């Protein structure tokens, strides 16, 4: 009995050890990828910020209320750009974003259209019967500006053509390596109400006109936020995976320790038994 038990424990220790090796390797890979991804996200940030600042400046102060991008329409159809990972094993990274999207559109009569970035995103939204109009698997790791412009152009055209009345992006913001928040950001229509009441008078000379510059900026703005969101989400994904793998490695280590204890106990028991047998055998003689 004891020896059979020992064999089983030994086998389990072995299997947990190999699992630990895998999670450890994944942790290391994720942490090196995370460093790179974080750098990329940081590089992209000034571009986005400058773009956003400029967009706001024009939208708040320079009378572009007539533009198709600022006019509020009755929201019937929505387009969501959803950014999540290509792979699982990253804690709640993927599901947090999906949950947010599901919560967002649970009251809607018509399901939103989806532009899905990441294999997991595609799987999820197709399975749940959403209208996935564009799919970008394996997008985040080798991110190119050109692909983002593809998404931006699609979104702008659909909005202009009246197919959708609102475009939002769902992604994960990087707060720290330990904390990432799923976020929704509305791309168009651009909010124009300023809280201050009186609009600041702008002295900027727009060439040829504020509207023209504004309409040129919108696609670029969308591009920059898609780019930024993907960069940031990717950093989050790696970070989430690193944390998940780190705790998996810790758990495996704990399990190995517990099992070793069990194994040693079983072994000791067996030895004691043997001694008992020998002693009682010797006494009998």
């Amino acid at each position: 009995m004891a020896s059979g038990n020992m064999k089983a424990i030994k086998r389990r220790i072995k299997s947990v050890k190999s699992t630990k090796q895998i999670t450890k390797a994944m942790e290391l890979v994720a942490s090196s990828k995370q460093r790179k991804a974080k750098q990329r996200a940081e590089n992209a940030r000034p571009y986005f910020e400058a773009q956003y600042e400029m967009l706001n400046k024009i939208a708040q102060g320079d009378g572009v209320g007539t533009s198709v991008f600022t006019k509020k329409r009755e929201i019937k159809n929505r387009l969501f750009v959803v950014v999540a990972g290509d792979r699982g094993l990253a804690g709640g990274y993927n599901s947090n974003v999906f949950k947010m999207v599901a919560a967002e559109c649970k009251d809607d009569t018509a399901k939103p259209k989806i532009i899905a970035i990441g294999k997991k995103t595609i799987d999820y939204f197709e399975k749940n019967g959403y209208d996935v109009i564009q799919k970008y698997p394996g997008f985040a790791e080798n991110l190119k500006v050109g692909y983002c412009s593809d998404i931006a152009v699609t979104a702008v055209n659909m909005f202009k053509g009246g197919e959708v009345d609102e475009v939002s992006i769902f992604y994960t913001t990087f707060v720290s390596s330990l904390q990432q928040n799923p976020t929704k950001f509305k791309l168009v229509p651009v909010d124009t109400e300023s809280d201050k009441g009186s609009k600041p008078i702008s002295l900027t000379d727009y060439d040829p006109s504020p509207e023209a510059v504004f309409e040129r900026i919108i696609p670029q703005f969308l591009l920059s936020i898609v780019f930024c969101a993907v960069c940031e989400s990717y950093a989050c994904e790696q970070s989430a995976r690193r944390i998940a793998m780190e705790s998996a490695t810790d758990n495996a280590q704990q399990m190995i320790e517990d099992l070793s204890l069990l194994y040693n106990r079983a072994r000791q028991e067996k030895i004691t038994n043997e001694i008992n047998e020998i002693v009682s055998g010797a006494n009998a003689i």
Partner: protein
Amino acid sequence: MNPFKLQIVTPSGVFFDDMSVGVVLRTTTGDKGILARHELYAAALVIGKIKINFPDKTSRVAAISGGVVNVEKDKTVILTQSCEWSDEIDLERAELAKTQTEEKLKSFTENSSSDQRELCIAEFKLKRALNRIDVAGG
């Protein structure tokens, strides 16, 4: 000539952030020169080249792929998708991109049923490749 602060920002980072005495840009309405104490100004840029003059009387040319320029009181910011100095352009790659997109466009015109969006993208790519070749050559 008075220097002013010029920044060129791209999605892959801040490309240029230094003093300049003048910059020539190609906007949607034509070429524009910006010197220190220019009035507040904003314009959309097209695919083309920009020339930056430095305080030490040297100048450099770069290829940009569209964007916007925003002249503020204390600095001028150029936002663009990509920017390359003329002497750092990989001419071979640009030529390759050119021939590839040209072939693609040819195949598009042959079968007219092709996607309008794909066509736009290919045209945009060709324009960029031609611009890069042009800037690197001169």
